[in-house]
């Protein structure tokens, strides 16, 4: 475990140095773009709820917390699992073969080797935004709430990781990763709103199949005390089952890998 952490740290520092050395202006543009995107999402929510007052039973300040939580969880998961966006290229140019020869897990390199330093910098303001939104909604974050949210974060991270592993497995077998991960990201945006708006069937899929309900609506419900923290036990079991299944599919996909590119 220590070796994995040290390698991840080294790769992240290198990534940071590369960004500072080669693309400082680009990094600033990215930060501005991300903040602008978040601001426009908040603006949309405000515009709608200025007239509608309630969305799926949530007030504006509650919906803002859901959006802030979604933004935070989505950023944290993307921050660590950035490698998926360049995985296709790694298979095509044969770099994936080097991952397979490496003493560390090929999955670790495929998924965690391109941590985005820009996202890393945004984590602090995004977490402060969550704290502000909770306070604004009338539910200031207490120590027990933070512990519960941390448990949710670990569980949802496991579920998101499982989906990323499944997409990588598709990449190994069919070389199709880019649009699949972007499709996942498009779907993920559904989590930015209370999942009740997608109807019973839609919200069931987003809760039990995808990790989307657990990204924002369920943790918000836990903050609002609309759901019991005990439900997290069920989600923890579900996350473990999804991870086991994803690892099985990954292993199977590796067996059919022909290393044709190298």
């Amino acid at each position, binding site marked *: 475990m220590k070796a994995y952490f040290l390698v991840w740290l080294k790769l992240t520092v290198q990534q940071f140095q590369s960004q500072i050395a080669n693309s400082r202006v680009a990094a600033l543009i990215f930060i501005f*773009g991300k903040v*602008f995107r978040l601001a426009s999402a908040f603006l949309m929510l405000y515009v*709608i709820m200025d007239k509608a007052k309630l969305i799926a039973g949530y007030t504006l300040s509650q919906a803002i917390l859901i959006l802030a939580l979604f933004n935070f969880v989505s950023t944290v998961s993307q921050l660590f699992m950035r490698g998926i966006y360049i995985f296709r290229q790694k298979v095509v140019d044969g770099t994936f073969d080097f991952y397979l020869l490496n003493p560390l897990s090929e999955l670790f390199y495929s998924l965690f080797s391109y941590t985005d330093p820009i996202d890393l910098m945004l984590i602090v303001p995004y977490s402060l935004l969550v704290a502000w939104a909770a306070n604004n909604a009338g539910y200031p974050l207490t120590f027990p709430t933070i512990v519960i949210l941390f448990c949710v974060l670990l569980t949802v991270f496991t579920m998101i990781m499982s989906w990323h592993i499944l997409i990588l497995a598709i990449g190994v077998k069919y070389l199709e990763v880019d*649009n699949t991960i972007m*499709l996942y990201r498009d779907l993920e945006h*559904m989590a930015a709103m209370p999942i009740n708006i997608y109807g019973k069937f839609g919200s069931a899929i987003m809760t039990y199949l995808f990790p989307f309900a657990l990204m924002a609506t369920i943790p918000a419900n836990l903050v609002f005390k609309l759901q019991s923290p005990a439900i997290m036990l069920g989600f923890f079991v579900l996350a473990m089952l999804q991870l086991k299944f994803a690892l099985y599919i990954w292993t199977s996909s590796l067996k059919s890998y022909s290393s044709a590119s190298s």
Partner: protein
Amino acid sequence: MNKYFSLFAITLQEIFAYRLNMLMWRVRQVFVFLVPFFIWKSVLGAGGMIYGYSFAAIMTYLFGTTILRSLVMGSRTIDLGWMINTGALTIPLMRPIRLFIFFFVRDLADKIFNLGFMLIELPLIYFIFKPPLFLQFDPIKLLLTAISIMLAILIYFYINIIFGSFAFWSKDTWAPRFLLMVIMEFATGAMFPLDMLPQLWQNILYCLPFPYLLYVPLKLYLAADSAPLGHLTIAIVWALILYAITKYIWHKGISSYEAEGR
């Protein structure tokens, strides 16, 4: 003329070569529609109006943005930055073709591909969700809409050439393009109709080229534009300004092009 027809056919063949990729792209376009559909359904599905929009009007707007995105924003010119950075631009430069027409024909092929699939997907979405729609039959309004769409296609084409041309001077073309995408998502009216914003914001946005890509053509279709001829005139002015900027930047860029990588 024949060579451009061949180019058109080759571009379509390129798109169809990677079928899973193409399928995932189309599935993504459907989901782009579904998220705002559910948001507006939860707010207006039971009746009433927001900012003068009924559920039928907002659904028509949503259907319209989905179609127009395919038609206006379907583009292969986004590859220009990559072509400059890898030296791939050298190949079309050496051929007896006019480069702007080369890019425009490739764009047209992409638009026809997107529109073709849209015509299959949208009826499916319509029959599944049965949203109320407003159909425009007034020939004058339809003519103004068609002119506005043609201007939108030109404006977007020039914007793409300008942003792609940054690659003549910088390896980082993705950062400005990301910022452009984020700004366009908001300023074109793709997220929500721009007349939901305060008047001052609308006035500022009308001075930019972005509302003329989606928002203005749709308002013309809905016969809800307060100054149709004025907005069409501004769109023409923007198309001319962007054409002049494109010519200038391209001329400057091509004289510093080193065909690096070839």
